[in-house]
């Protein structure tokens, strides 16, 4: 249990932490214990094997086993950190799990806070695989950047610079860090030389892309600007509802929608999440998808989501393969969405509560209209009525066909679907038309036309 000592962290439905404005995730470590090793009498809890997320503002700890249940997650504000100890290289440290230690201040009531009378030393024990040195370097970097101080004041762009820094690949802080004075010979020496060569290439690449980083920090400002405009529009429409006519309102709403879709402020990236990349991406996607899915009526094409998601991510684009992997990971988490593959191979994302029954009922109502009884419906007819994309409508029609609800008619005029009459016709007397039923209404619809 986190207890009262650590400020709690809110968790989204899919198990991702809720970030503060301008807060950006920088580093992920799995299998991490968080405890106060030296002084077990303090109120600081002993947190065992969780996911540690370093952001520009906080150090978040999420329980790993059941991350989506929430509740037990906690976070140490970087503002409360008063000192970070450098790693002592000793013989003992070779055999035990890597540790990072830092000092946090505590209020008299035993809560972690930015201003406090006491202080405790907190130890991070990295039991899982993870680059501990790189983590320490990032922790230092974020702690000194003091991004939390800019929270609220949009004018300063220190947070933006911090964001830009974190966005650059930080492989240079790896295992072969500056203190690697031990001379290596033989194969390991060659390997090290190779590594150094890579690092220098990496550095020159970074120099070359510095302009891009500047662009990215500007991109963040653009997002902030968009947010500001959105708020302004929002307040504007509230104050003068009577004066504005409908058309103007429509365009304003459109503008708002557009601005809303501009940014995910802290996209999960391969650099920040490493091995946990797909897992975290999967959770972020599940959070993001709720709104577009609702708009699309509970089912949305994978391709459409790929476009929407990448547009929201801005510069940190993901590949189609990453998206697919993220979606297939949903099976393992408790999220309200699922990936579904139709027989035709088309893949869609749908809410778990989405029912085919409802769609089938709508399709049935559509084909039972007199005109549709006589002439059938095409995929685009169904798309108009159901309010979905034609490709999606066709999938619905095909699955209704496989359920025996519809049957097809292929002719030079095209591919159309009709209500399935075959089941209604008496096999023993092919001339018989029962008084009531679908067959009778079909005969009638045909007659009234002729």
């Amino acid at each position, binding site marked *: 249990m986190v207890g009262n000592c650590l400020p709690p962290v809110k968790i989204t439905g899919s198990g991702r932490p809720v970030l503060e404005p301008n807060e950006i995730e920088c580093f992920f470590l799995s299998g991490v214990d968080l405890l106060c090793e030296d002084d077990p009498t303090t109120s600081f809890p002993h947190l065992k094997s969780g996911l540690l997320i370093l952001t520009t503002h906080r150090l978040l700890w999420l329980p790993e086993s059941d991350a989506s249940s929430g509740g037990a997650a906690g976070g140490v504000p970087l503002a409360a950190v008063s000192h970070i100890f450098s790693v002592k290289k000793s013989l003992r440290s070779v055999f035990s799990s890597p540790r990072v230690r830092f000092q946090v201040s505590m209020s008299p009531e035993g809560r972690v806070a930015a201003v406090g009378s006491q202080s405790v030393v907190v130890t991070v024990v990295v039991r899982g695989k993870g680059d501990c040195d790189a983590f320490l370097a990032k922790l230092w970097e974020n702690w000194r950047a003091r991004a939390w101080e800019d929270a609220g004041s949009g004018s300063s762009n220190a947070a933006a610079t911090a964001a830009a820094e974190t966005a650059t690949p930080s492989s240079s802080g790896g295992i072969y860090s500056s203190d690697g004075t031990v001379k290596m010979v033989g194969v390991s020496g060659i390997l090290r030389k190779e590594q150094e060569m890579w690092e220098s290439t990496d550095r020159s690449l970074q120099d070359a892309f510095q302009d891009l980083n500047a662009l990215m920090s500007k991109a963040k400002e653009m997002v902030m600007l968009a947010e500001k405009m959105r708020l302004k529009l929002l307040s504007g429409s509230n104050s003068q509802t009577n004066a504005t006519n409908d058309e103007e309102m429509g365009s304003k709403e459109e503008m708002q929608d557009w601005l809303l879709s501009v940014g995910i402020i802290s996209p999960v990236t391969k650099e920040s999440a490493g091995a946990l990349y797909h897992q975290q991406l999967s959770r972020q996607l599940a959070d993001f998808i709720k709104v577009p899915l609702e708009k699309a009526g509970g089912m949305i094409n994978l391709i459409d989501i790929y476009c929407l998601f990448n547009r929201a991510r801005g510069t940190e684009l993901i590949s189609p393969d990453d998206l697919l992997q993220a979606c297939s990971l949903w099976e393992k988490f408790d999220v309200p969405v699922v990936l579904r593959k139709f027989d035709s191979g088309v893949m869609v994302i749908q809410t778990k509560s989405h029912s085919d029954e409802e769609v089938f009922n709508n399709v049935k109502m559509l084909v039972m209209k007199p005109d549709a009884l006589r002439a059938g419906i095409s995929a685009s007819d169904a798309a108009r009525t159901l309010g979905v994309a034609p490709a999606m409508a066709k999938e619905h029609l095909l699955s209704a066909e496989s359920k*025996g609800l519809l*049957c*097809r008619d292929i*002719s030079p005029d095209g591919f159309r679907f009709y209500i*399935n009459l*075959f089941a209604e*016709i008496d*096999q023993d007397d*092919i*001339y018989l038309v029962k008084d009531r039923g679908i067959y009778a209404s079909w005969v009638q619809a045909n007659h009234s036309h002729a």
Partner: protein
Amino acid sequence: MQKLGEFKLPHFFNYPPYFTLQPVRDTREKQIQLWKELILDYCKTQKTFVIALEEEFPLFTNHVIERSLTHEAREAFLSALVSEGRAEWMDKGHRKCLILWHRIQDWADILIQFAKDNGLEDGVVTIEEIRSGTESQGTDLHGIDRTILNRALKLLEQKGKLVVFKGTSTDDEGVKFSV
């Protein structure tokens, strides 16, 4: 109701999916069943014995709704009749199909009935007389397909109900009943 010559067509003949081979198994089975019934019905009333797949067959095209069966569909429906013993392929390439709107056994029974009706229990009749003679007028035997007749005669010969004897040419073939 629509008609094809003298033949009364069922309502669903104007149902466009009836002319597209349905891909879903359950639906297709019902569709095939309806086609089998219609083909047998039509052949019986029209005294049609052979359907050639590559030639025009009135049932397989509906000019009113401008639909016609594909070759694949025609073969599927006739194959269903073949597997039920109500039709036979006349060649390996499945180009011609013999429709048995009476099974061979039923044809044999009709022949016996024909012999009894005409006092031929011990008599002799030529095959041509059976197919186009005045005695067979008005019965299903009139204009019967030669292949089907031969099969029915052979069945009865095996049972000892008649003997087929050959003349100088095929026209001279005769039958001696011994019912």
